[in-house]
């Protein structure tokens, strides 16, 4: 599903964000990427979504080598990935349903199917019947759920989330993580960047640890304690 082979990323100002990173993620696996601030977690997710290009090495996602991906093929790649952001990135002037429907509109899904998928996604995140609400009237946790509903509405086989519980209290964080576990159970591959170590320990999933751009540890799910 995802394969990093000696991947490096150097930003134009000279900062080395990732150095010689090699790991892979199997289909249906759930993987946490952790490390202190500036360790390279977000850069790693940006490389997977082709928001950034690697400076060296190769990245394969869905069997496609991202280093060779043409610029015009990037939107197609992103349509196969569900993205969840720490700051939700919801469109506040649209309804909840419109936000969730956006990736479906982009993919050209027919209106009836769109409505059905939006209902299904909102049900999955516990927001059934809230489609007409404005995001601004929702709590932070509910807004994050809308962000997750938007990520899963397109039924992507890969979901990446950048600090999805960063702004949430422990109880809400737990609820959001349970949602990701439920998605994993349906066969989705999930990659989450998080620095919340207690949460990671409770989740008991595979963890990749980054430090100053180096992969310093890759802990299997059964070894997380």
């Amino acid at each position, binding site marked *: 599903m995802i394969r990093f082979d000696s991947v490096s990323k150097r930003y134009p100002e000279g900062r080395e964000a990732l150095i010689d990173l090699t790991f892979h993620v199997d289909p249906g696996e759930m993987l946490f990427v952790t490390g202190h601030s500036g360790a390279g977690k977000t850069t790693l997710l940006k490389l997977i*979504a082709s*928001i950034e290009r690697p400076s060296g090495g190769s990245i394969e996602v869905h069997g496609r080598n991202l280093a060779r991906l043409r610029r*015009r093929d990037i*939107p*197609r*790649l*992103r*349509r*196969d*990935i569900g*993205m969840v952001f720490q700051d939700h*990135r919801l*469109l506040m*002037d649209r309804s909840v349903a419109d936000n969730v429907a*956006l*990736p479906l*509109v*982009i*993919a*050209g*899904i*027919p*209106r009836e199917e769109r409505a059905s998928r939006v209902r299904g996604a909102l049900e999955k995140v516990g927001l059934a019947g809230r489609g007409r609400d404005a995001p601004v009237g929702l709590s932070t946790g509910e807004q994050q759920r809308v962000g997750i509903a*938007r990520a899963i509405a397109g039924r992507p086989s890969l979901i990446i989330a950048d600090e999805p519980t960063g702004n949430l209290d422990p109880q809400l964080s737990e609820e959001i993580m349970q949602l990701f576990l439920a998605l994993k159970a349906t066969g989705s591959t999930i990659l989450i960047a998080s620095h919340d170590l207690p949460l990671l320990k409770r989740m008991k999933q595979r963890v990749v640890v980054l430090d100053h751009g180096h992969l310093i540890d890759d802990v299997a799910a059964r070894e997380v304690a």
Partner: protein
Amino acid sequence: MSARAAMASQVRRTRLGMWRRQHAWCLRDSLRQVVRRPLGSALTIAVMGIALALPLAFYLLLANVQHLTAALGDSQAVSVFLKSGQGAEQAATLAQNLRTRSDVATVALRTPQQGLAELAAMQGFGDAVQALPDNPLPFVLLVDPRAGSSRAQVESLVEALRAMPQVDQVQDNGQWRARLDALVALGRRVTLLLAILLGAAAVLVIGNTVRLDIRGRAGEIAVQQLLGASPSFVRRPYLYEGACYGLAAGIVAVLLVLVLEAVLAAPVRDLVASYAGRLHFGGLSSATLAATLAIALVLGWLGAWIASSRQLARS
């Protein structure tokens, strides 16, 4: 149909459906954005509408002047007024002599009675004609130069006519006709320049509005791009927005010119009547209206295309 052809047809239908759905969504989205800022949108539409109305009004004026020149025909007729002592027989002889000239096509004789009747038929002259003790008008010969004659040849004919002892005065109608044609040509060029300048202004107004809109929606554009929107998908709502502004401005321009037409209709009708109906005041044709709306729509689209190309290339 083979299985492969059926599948290809199915794929084409699916792609077409996808394309249609995306366009429908983008159109709704752009209309929503236009309606969301009623004052800003109204100002943009009004400015562009006035900019388009000006060349349209000039075009209307020019079209009516062209009607006038068309009504006059393209002849270079010369009116030859004979001296008051010349009788019918002498006038007919002179007409016959002129017909034999190689530079003359036709000669028509108009008697003083015919001239007086024509004058009496004109509005406002009836009473004056009645008051005349006798007919002061001379015999007039309407001389048409040979078809294809140049200005120099006509002027040479005019000189020859002036030199004849029976002739009192020669009026060269082609001379003022040439001046009118030159004025119409100048008016046409001024209208074209005005249309280009104000069209460019309209493009800039729409472009600036769309540019500000794109800047205001930078966050939304970033989200769309992250969710896999292609550059054309991101740009499409702004192109529709520009086209909507353009179309609305075109409607405003047409309405302004129709109002202008209505306001001027009565005085122009009086003016036309004073010329015994020889002049005709025409309004905008449905083809002109349709062309105006189409041009306005294209200008709006163009402004949005320029602005979105520049702004989205930076995002």
